[in-house]
């Protein structure tokens, strides 16, 4: 849940930033390239026309010599270089087989293809030499004088015009562009985060509202802002929550009514049961004197009255747990005494082996502890086989009481359900089907629990009660 919505935010911000950066890079790049090409073109035009003008003006005798001409001297070539040399530039001259380098620049700095092409016509090219940008203009020199017909002279000049100034200007331009790009990136990130938050905040609110609803806060509603899809979703959420609340309330009131009904019925049943119970002893004594068949009938009635009484008692006890009115009256109790009293009162002392340390005492509700032990032992005696063993010990986590029988055991498929109400594993006996569930509710009221495990042979119930 959390992961997707972080993912959504990252995706939104990422997309936003990518678009913004791409757009600004495109604009800046186009602008930069435009400025760059215009600037360099201009520098190139100036340099080329300078070279051309200068060359038109030279009077040095080169090429096929005319009468009166003498081959150019080195001084004349240097003068030519000097006149062609732009500010901070270099001029390399190739004349027939002679090369005239200029300073640290030689013919090796001229790319081979340009060297060849420059013998035919004027070519210009930008060239990076030792990290600096140069404009390299190569041109053959023609001679028009003195016959006013252009003739090749076999001389090629290579003018290296520096573009340092332009380079500096461009780098000056790059810096603000980079700054603007950075600013754009930050703005894009900020805007992306803000809009992600704006979009995701209602989503997150919906998420936590849905969680609250799931946790049982059925009155959770969200304020609806605006008209967009999220507002629609929020409204739908509110409607759903309202519908859910309505049906849950209905169910709850139905459940409360049925519980109330069970509790009322149980209480109403108690009065006739009290009247019947009052005369059971008398009837059972009289049954001794009756003929066999009526005596059997009377005994059956008495037995069923006892069973009905247990059932009603346990129904009332269970409904008290349901309504939350069960209370705990804690007292420090000697466990041996409590267990032995519980067994003695029910006439089970001879059928159960008790193994509890003499001095063990523990704070608990004696009546509820009695119910727990009586239910577990009664269950073991009814459904298991002897020996039935009750052990108790004090552990750092509280009191642990174990009730073990050695019977056939509870089928593995029934084991998880033995604490369910009216769940009866195997044959329907004289148990009410509520005993184990009440025993566990009593343990839970103490903050403890009861667990069950299959043994070979038999079944082991373990009661755990935490220290008060």
């Amino acid at each position: 849940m959390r992961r997707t919505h972080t993912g959504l935010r990252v995706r939104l911000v990422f997309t936003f930033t990518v678009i913004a950066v791409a757009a600004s890079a495109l604009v800046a790049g186009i602008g930069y390239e435009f400025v760059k090409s215009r600037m360099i073109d201009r520098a190139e035009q100036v340099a080329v026309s300078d070279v051309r003008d200068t060359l038109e003006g030279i009077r040095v005798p080169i090429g096929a010599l005319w009468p009166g001409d003498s081959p150019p001297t080195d001084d004349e070539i240097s003068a030519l270089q000097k006149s062609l040399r732009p500010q901070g530039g270099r001029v390399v001259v190739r004349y027939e087989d002679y090369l005239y380098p200029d300073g640290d620049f030689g013919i090796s700095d001229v790319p081979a293809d340009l060297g060849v092409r420059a013998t035919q016509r004027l070519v210009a090219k930008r060239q990076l030499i030792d990290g600096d940008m140069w404009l390299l203009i190569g041109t053959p020199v023609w001679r028009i004088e003195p016959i006013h017909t252009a003739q090749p002279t076999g001389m090629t000049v290579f003018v290296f015009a520096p573009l340092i100034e332009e380079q500096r200007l461009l780098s000056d331009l790059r810096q603000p562009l980079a700054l603007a790009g950075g600013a754009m990136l930050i703005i894009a990130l900020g805007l992306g985060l803000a809009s992600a938050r704006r979009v995701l905040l209602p989503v997150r609110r919906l998420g936590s509202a849905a969680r609250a609803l799931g946790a049982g806060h059925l009155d959770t509603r969200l304020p609806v802002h605006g008209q967009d899809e999220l507002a629609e979703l929020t409204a739908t959420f509110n409607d759903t929550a309202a519908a859910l609340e309505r049906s849950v309330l209905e169910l709850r009131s139905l459940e409360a009514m049925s519980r109330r009904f069970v509790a009322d019925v149980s209480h109403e049943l108690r009065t006739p049961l009290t009247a019947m119970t009052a005369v059971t002893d008398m009837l059972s004594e009289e049954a001794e004197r009756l003929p066999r068949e009526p005596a059997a009938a009377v005994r059956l009635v008495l037995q069923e009255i006892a069973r009905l009484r247990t059932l009603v008692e346990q129904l009332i006890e269970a409904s008290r747990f349901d309504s939350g009115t069960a209370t705990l009256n804690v007292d420090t109790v000697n466990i041996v005494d409590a267990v032995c009293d519980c067994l003695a009162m029910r006439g089970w002392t001879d059928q159960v082996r008790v193994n509890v340390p003499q001095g063990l005492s523990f704070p608990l509700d004696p009546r509820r502890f009695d119910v727990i032990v009586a239910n577990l032992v009664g269950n073991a005696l009814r459904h298991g086989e002897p020996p039935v063993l009750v052990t108790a010990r004090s552990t750092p986590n509280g009191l642990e009481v174990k009730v073990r029988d050695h019977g056939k055991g509870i089928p593995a498929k029934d084991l998880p359900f033995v604490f369910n109400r009216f769940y009866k594993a195997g044959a329907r006996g004289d148990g009410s089907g509520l005993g184990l569930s009440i025993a566990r509710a009593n343990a839970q009221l103490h903050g403890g629990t009861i667990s069950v495990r299959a043994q070979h042979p038999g079944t082991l119930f373990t009661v755990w009660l935490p220290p008060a």
Partner: protein
Amino acid sequence: MAGILLVEDDPAVRIGLELALTRQGHTVTSYASGEEALEHVKVRRPEIAILDVMLPGIDGVEVCRRIRRLDQLPVILLTARGDDLDVVVGLEAGADDYVVKPVEPRVLDARIRAVLRRMESVASDRITFGDLVIDRGALKVVLSGREVHLTPTELRLLLELVRHPGQVLNRRYLLRAVWDHTHVADSRLVDACVQRVRAKIEAVPAEPEFIHTVRGFGYRFSPP
């Protein structure tokens, strides 16, 4: 065995209990309402009263309270539930014991006998603790020269505590000794009865001089 006053509004329960108690040898006079029963108490002297808590008109607890104003007649309450307010209120009103419906006649008979046995004298001697004089023969308690009226149960509890001066008696022991309860019963019986005895013999019941509470264990009688 004993003259019993039974108050129970449900006719079937009333007849059932009458039958059972009569068979056990008691003489039972029964009424359907508390008002009638109170009239009877004034005229005839039953030995014990068994009161249903839920009654039309004044309820069992109120009947018990009014009986206590007149004399120390032992009272057993017949309640519908074992662990609700009924019991606490009933014990505070001065009931000696209670049974939960539906009650087996044997159990009810045992309780009746236990309550009545408390009226039998223990030994004929007299012990004095400062202002407090306990006459075990005459079953009389005198505080600062004036007789204190204790119910048989209260007296029995006091005598049990006095028999072991300086010794802590736990609630289970007292339940067995005084109420004859043989199973884990309600320690509220003991607590409520101690409160009533304190109210009668202590100068300041909240700061007792005779019967001290030992938290988590029980009570100890140690005279100042």
